């Protein structure tokens, strides 16, 4: 056996002899399995629940009786955000965003009933998922197993002995790396087995899964290198342990919490009341449909009459109230899009700031990589919100056009006792309305979103390797 393998073998034997280390390792594997199983079943039940609620909402929509189309605009439709299969590995912001949305005319409602407002305070302690175990817990176990790998040898003087026997410095370091790397591999294995189970689910995507596997492998490898590096740099193993735990606490626990606070303070977000009032103000300035003398709507009326070449709205071949509804919805929706776009842009700026801070914390970079590839990051939620808005607009405008073409102006303005029945259109129209179908992102687009995080993690790994090779050259000099 060559010296590197011998040293690795020896290090592993030492770990196996350390009863606490073995217990900790077994506990971690168990924890990963529990996390994988529970979040897999959670993801399944959530996906099933939402699918069931979605189909109930669709049935309710289709089962409406004959109604005036504008009633259906306000009856609206409920949609539920589907949960992708990779959410079983990393649910990301799923618990923090509402997962159902009520869509109706002239209003943009919020996504409601997120887990975070339906759970106990424990939800803020973190969520037990394979991603959480690998991001937070696994590095600490590696620290416990590896802090003494080199510091112990130099503390006890055995490093000198090894070198006297002709072992190269590089061989010692590579042996320690190999031993700890094997542990890291074993630590990551249960989560990856769970990952393979997910891969069997329809809709799971190979490219983002590959990126996730690569990212976590790089992250754990980074910790292995960092641990051996610190262990090589300090003289006493206790110092190595304290320094590594401090590094872990700052990178994994502290910075991920501080970064959002900085982003929140740096980029203010308009609240809903401000946005609603601003939209109402803009609408009033654009045109006031309640005001008969409003220049915008007078011009619209004039344009419409000219287009159909008639003198009064009563002579129009279509229902003017429906046309007005189409025009009104166009106006409000353009404002919704503008303000939502501003809010999304501000949130994206906040997240970019957090990612910039992620340059100092590989845990932040890995988290964003993981969520992006799993499609459970802010971009994933935004994708849902934008599709929901597009669907809402399309549905409402279909209904408005139905009012323009399916209900006559004279019926629509009549108030006699029989008018209510004449205003209604046949119930078969509701069935013909399209249903909300969430278009899941392609594997390539998910993978693209994960690339910056991957670059940071691998960049850290490269820098750490560089530092380790420099530290190796000076190993045992003191």
């Amino acid at each position: 056996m060559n010296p590197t393998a011998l040293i690795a073998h020896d290090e592993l034997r030492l770990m196996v002899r350390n009863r606490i280390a073995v217990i900790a390792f077994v506990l971690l594997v168990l924890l990963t399995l529990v996390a994988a199983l529970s979040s897999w079943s959670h993801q399944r039940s959530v996906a099933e629940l939402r699918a069931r609620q979605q189909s109930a909402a669709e049935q309710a929509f289709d089962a409406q009786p004959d109604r005036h189309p504008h009633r259906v605009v306000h009856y609206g439709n409920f949609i539920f955000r589907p949960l992708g299969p990779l959410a079983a590995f990393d649910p990301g912001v799923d618990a923090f965003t509402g997962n159902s949305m009520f869509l109706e005319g002239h209003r943009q409602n919020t996504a409601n009933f997120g887990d975070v407002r339906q759970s106990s305070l424990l939800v803020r302690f973190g969520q037990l998922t394979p991603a959480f175990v690998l991001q937070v817990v696994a590095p600490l176990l590696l620290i416990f197993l590896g802090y003494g790998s080199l510091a112990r040898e130099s503390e006890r003087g055995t490093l000198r002995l090894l070198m006297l026997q002709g072992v190269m410095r590089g061989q010692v370091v590579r042996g320690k790396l190999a031993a700890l790397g094997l542990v890291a591999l074993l630590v990551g294995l249960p989560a990856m087995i769970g990952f393979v189970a997910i891969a069997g689910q329809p809709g799971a995507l190979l490219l983002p899964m590959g990126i996730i596997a690569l990212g976590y492998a790089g992250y754990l490898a980074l910790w292995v290198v960092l641990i051996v590096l610190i262990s090589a740099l300090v003289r006493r193993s206790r110092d190595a342990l304290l320094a590594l735990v401090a590094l872990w606490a700052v990178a994994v626990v502290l910075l991920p919490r501080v970064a959002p606070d900085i982003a929140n303070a740096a980029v203010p977000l308009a609240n809903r009341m401000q946005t609603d009032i601003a939209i109402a103000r803009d609408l009033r300035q654009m045109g006031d449909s309640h005001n008969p003398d409003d220049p915008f709507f007078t011009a619209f009326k004039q344009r419409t009459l000219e287009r159909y070449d008639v003198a009064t709205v009563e002579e129009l071949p279509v229902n003017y109230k429906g046309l007005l509804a189409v025009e009104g919805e166009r106006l409000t929706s353009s404002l919704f899009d503008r303000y939502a776009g501003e809010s999304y842009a501000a949130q994206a700026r906040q997240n970019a700031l957090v990612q910039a801070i992620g340059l100092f914390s590989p845990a932040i970079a890995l988290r964003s990589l993981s969520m992006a590839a799993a499609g459970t990051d802010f971009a994933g939620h935004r994708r849902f919100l934008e599709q929901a808005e597009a669907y809402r607009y399309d549905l409402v405008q279909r209904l408005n056009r139905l009012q323009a073409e399916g209900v006559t102006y004279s019926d629509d303005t009549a108030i006699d006792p029989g008018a209510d029945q004449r205003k209604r259109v046949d119930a078969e129209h509701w069935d013909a309305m399209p249903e909300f179908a969430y278009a899941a992102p392609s594997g390539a687009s998910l993978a693209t979103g994960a690339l910056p995080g991957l670059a940071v993690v691998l960049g850290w790994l490269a820098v750490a390797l560089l530092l380790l090779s420099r530290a190796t050259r000076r190993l045992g000099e003191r």
Partner: protein
Amino acid sequence: MGLWRHELRLLLRARLSVVALVLLAVLTIAALAAGLSEVARQRAAIAAIPASQAEDIGAIAAWAAETGDPGTAAYYSFHPTWDAPSPLAFAALGMRDVAPYILRVRALGLEAQIYDGDTFNPELALPGRFDFAFVLVFLAPLFVIALFHDLISGEREAGRQRMLAALPRGGAQLWQRRTVLRFAFLWTALGLPFAIAAIFSGVDAGATLAVLAVSAAYLWFWIALAWLVGRLRWSSVANAASLAACWLVLVLVLPTLAHVSINRAVPVNQGAEIALAQREMVNRAWDIPRDETMRRFYAKHPEWADSPPLPPEFHYKWYFAFHQVGDESVADEVEAYRTALEQRDRAARGLGWALPSVGVQALLTRLAETDLQSQLAYQDRIRAFHQRLRQFYYGYMFRDRPFGEADSDRAPHFKDLLDDAA
């Protein structure tokens, strides 16, 4: 006194302990500053309500008055409610970053409005906030570990333990002195900045003392744990490693495990179902005889039953009546939903007796009024206010009194509700 001064000198000569204490103080101050600025931001947003609301309601009142129809005014007027942060909120922001603290409601069906959220960035909310509670619950134990893991084992490894035990007032008394001194410094690093921030924010003395007492008790828990581990007579390194493992389990792993189990044991699906059921009920009114709705409404609210019969054309009192009937038809589901939420909360609080990390977080958010109970209390205030709104507009609609521009100034104000409660 001389012995104490001597110990103090020893403690401050060790680089690790000085760095740790300064770092803890810096983190505490940073967390307090972050909490204070967040609370100030929320207060500023609440303070900005009247001006923007005046502009909005003014524009609506102007054209609603032209129609003179109270229903139009009631339909289009949004009335703001808010949940001002308590003086202590800066220390434990709790749910205040994910639950709305400003919500505008109108006199229409409340069940379709009360669950609405505010705009927040979910990626920023995900890791949790950097506040005093976080520093205390998550970080302070690590500092206890740094200062206490080698309290005795360090002296043993240096070969001084027997000599120290043989000294007059050595042995147990010596460890007591060192323990009390280290505790005092840790507590000061946490408590002094907090107390200053609390006085500055006008927190009452009782709550301030309670937080200080909770902090002290939590520190003592970790000190006791370090002492227990120290009794095993392992090396300093083994002590540090096992204490850090305890920290991981008590602060990170067990709470997340408990979260999964509680959410599984107490299912809450009714949220979206309330919204669906209420919508069905509200919209059904268009397809059934209007009198049926009115009968149902008057049966529950006889005070309006002497209102004139509905005219053949549209009348807003019918519209608002069916909204209220829709709300009332889901009252049982609403109750069940709330009970389930409270059950989850109670289960977590119960766990706080066994898990100090959870207990401290629960206590702090309770004292700071940023927990689920406070959220539900805010919802109760919204409900009470919404009731006033209904009463106010019904007074016009059901009595066919015209609604002039001046009448919108008479509409209930959320501030009055808060003043009445105070």
